[in-house]
């Protein structure tokens, strides 16, 4: 059977031609044998010769050229855009929110882990702070799993995707955590977290259907709960306008204290300078076999509830220790 010569001089085209010739030569052979005696069936066709990933007939065997121009990965994240954003956001991170971490060493530097946190603020300020902090100090990307709603908004969707946002689909989470060993950040409260009004601050909403536990079990990765204090006060919601949200097809339409202070336009994007404190809890591993098709719903819900209670206790703990919203 044909093999491309090992000296690497064989180009794709000549190899192709040689293969065709050999096939023709074999043809005569086969015909002759079939005509005379009933021979055993032909040996199975060999696997196709492995050629370079980016095949170009004008290149030598083994030589590859990457035609890609940008650095956008399969999730839509671009390290280039991300580093630009880091440069812009860093002053805000350091001087506006004065983000303070506790226990960042509990986040692994290699391998997958599912980070979960409490979610707050009309336009949540916790996700960028967590993602920025980890990328800055641990030098590894964090993918933020979020509601697909972002994708429908022109401009925002693309920007969100380039900066590490991924639609929260179980397949996406599994691929990130299990196949690629990445860090994924998810807020199990979903939009129920950021849409709650100021009177409900730091009261965790229901943790979805416990899907995050199931994914972590299936991918065989730990869940690392992260408690964030300060994001609630950076953009507190006074009340919501459900009818406007319905017309604009938004998940919720908040009227925030920022709107009152900074006006309707600036107030939509400007945060109050509340001190953000982040505490990373111990990683939680599950003694469940990974890659199962289904997991017991009761175990999943129990685990999810346990993690929720743990996070709630930590939040109360941090709030008890906090003396000022603005200075921590």
């Amino acid at each position, binding site marked *: 059977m044909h093999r491309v010569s090992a000296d690497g001089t064989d180009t794709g085209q000549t190899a192709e031609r040689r293969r065709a010739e050999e096939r023709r030569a074999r043809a005569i052979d086969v015909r002759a044998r079939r005509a005379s005696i009933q021979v055993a069936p032909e040996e199975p066709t060999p*696997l196709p010769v492995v050629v370079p990933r980016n095949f170009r007939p004008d290149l030598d065997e083994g030589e590859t050229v990457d035609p*890609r121009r940008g650095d956008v990965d399969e999730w839509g994240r671009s390290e280039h855009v991300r580093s630009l954003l880091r440069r812009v956001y860093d002053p805000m991170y350091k001087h506006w929110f004065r983000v303070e971490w506790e226990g960042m060493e509990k986040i692994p530097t290699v391998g997958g882990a599912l980070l979960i946190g409490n979610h707050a603020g009309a336009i949540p300020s916790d996700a960028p702070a967590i993602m920025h902090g980890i990328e800055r100090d641990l030098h590894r990307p964090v993918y933020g799993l979020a509601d697909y709603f972002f994708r429908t*908004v022109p401009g925002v969707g693309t920007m969100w995707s380039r900066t590490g946002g991924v639609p929260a689909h179980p397949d996406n989470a599994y691929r990130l955590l299990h196949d690629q060993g990445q860090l994924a950040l998810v807020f199990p409260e979903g939009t129920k977290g950021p849409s709650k009004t100021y009177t409900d601050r730091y009261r965790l909403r229901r943790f979805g259907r416990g899907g995050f536990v199931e994914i972590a079990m299936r991918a065989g990765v730990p869940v690392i709960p992260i408690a964030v204090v300060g994001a609630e006060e950076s953009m507190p919601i006074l009340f919501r306008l459900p009818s406007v949200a319905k017309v604009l097809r938004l998940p919720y339409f908040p009227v925030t204290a920022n709107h009152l202070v900074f006006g309707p336009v600036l107030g939509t994007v400007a945060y109050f300078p509340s001190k953000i404190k982040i505490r990373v809890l111990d990683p939680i591993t599950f003694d469940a076999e990974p890659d199962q098709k289904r997991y017991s719903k009761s175990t999943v819900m129990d685990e999810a509830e346990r993690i929720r209670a743990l996070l709630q206790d930590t939040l109360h703990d941090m709030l008890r220790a906090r003396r000022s919203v603005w200075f921590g």
Partner: protein
Amino acid sequence: MAQTLEADPEVEMILGMGTNEPRVPLERTEYVRSDQAYSILHRIVQATQVDTVVHTFLETNSVGISGRALHEINVIGTLNLLAAAGAPGTPVRHVVVKSSTHVYGASEKDPVWFREETLRLAPVRTRVERSLLEVEAMLRDFAADNPHLIVSVLRFAHVLGTDIITPISYNLRKRVLPSILGFDPLVQFVEEDDVVRSLEHVTRNRIPGVFNVAGAGKLPWSEVATIGGAHLLPFPPVSARAFSAPLRRLGLVQFPPEMEAVIRYGRGVDTSRLIETGFRYRYTSAGAVESFARANNLRRTVGSSGNEYRYEQDVEQFFRHSPAVIRGSDG
């Protein structure tokens, strides 16, 4: 496809069928012209005792084709094909169908990679998608009803190549690529050569099942334009197709409805299942775009080169059957 099969001595006879004459020179393929819906296929199958039917005629592009014709080709054509292949006492052992990743649709809720069994999330809005889904449903039933037959379905991502005209390749040739303002989704391509090779791979190795076929990796739509040497032509996010109508009418762009969701949300398919069967791609997604761009540059400079082939039935018949022609060993 037929050209590749001709090179294989183990294939005893190849029978081509289509509505038009073949566009490439074929040495030993017998050719039959038929109507769009393959209504004579049953008789041909019975008469020739073929054991493999490769169905590559599904229309996955609604430009310049009416809804009725599309239905006729895709649904009724496949219906006739399956009826012929599944008839009692049929000689057919293997049915290979070339489908499209359009069956997954495209929506904001999609996973970044579709596996073969991932459920479609987007509502079915376009004719092409509807007819392809109908065809695949028929194939599923057919495979279940005829367990002794091998049924292979290949779902191809956007195909790029010099021999096939798709809306995207049409636009790249015109050097404009319609896009939707504010959206830059990730897309996948498969090179024509890999299309043929993958069809050959499942046909020859008799591999049953459904497979996604797409080059490795994904690239943003804007990068397709950069590599392909085209300019992006952004349309407003609302009623993009309506805005493109005058340009479409002038033949400057092709922008069929099934393309709209794709250039808004993109689509990715997981191809690991086909790779596990031993298939090796030659081109990545970006490589397919680059290869097309290079061919396109050449075409622009020297015109549509290559050996222009014109099918002339009488001449072909003479070459094939006349005892006066001295044939090669495989003639």
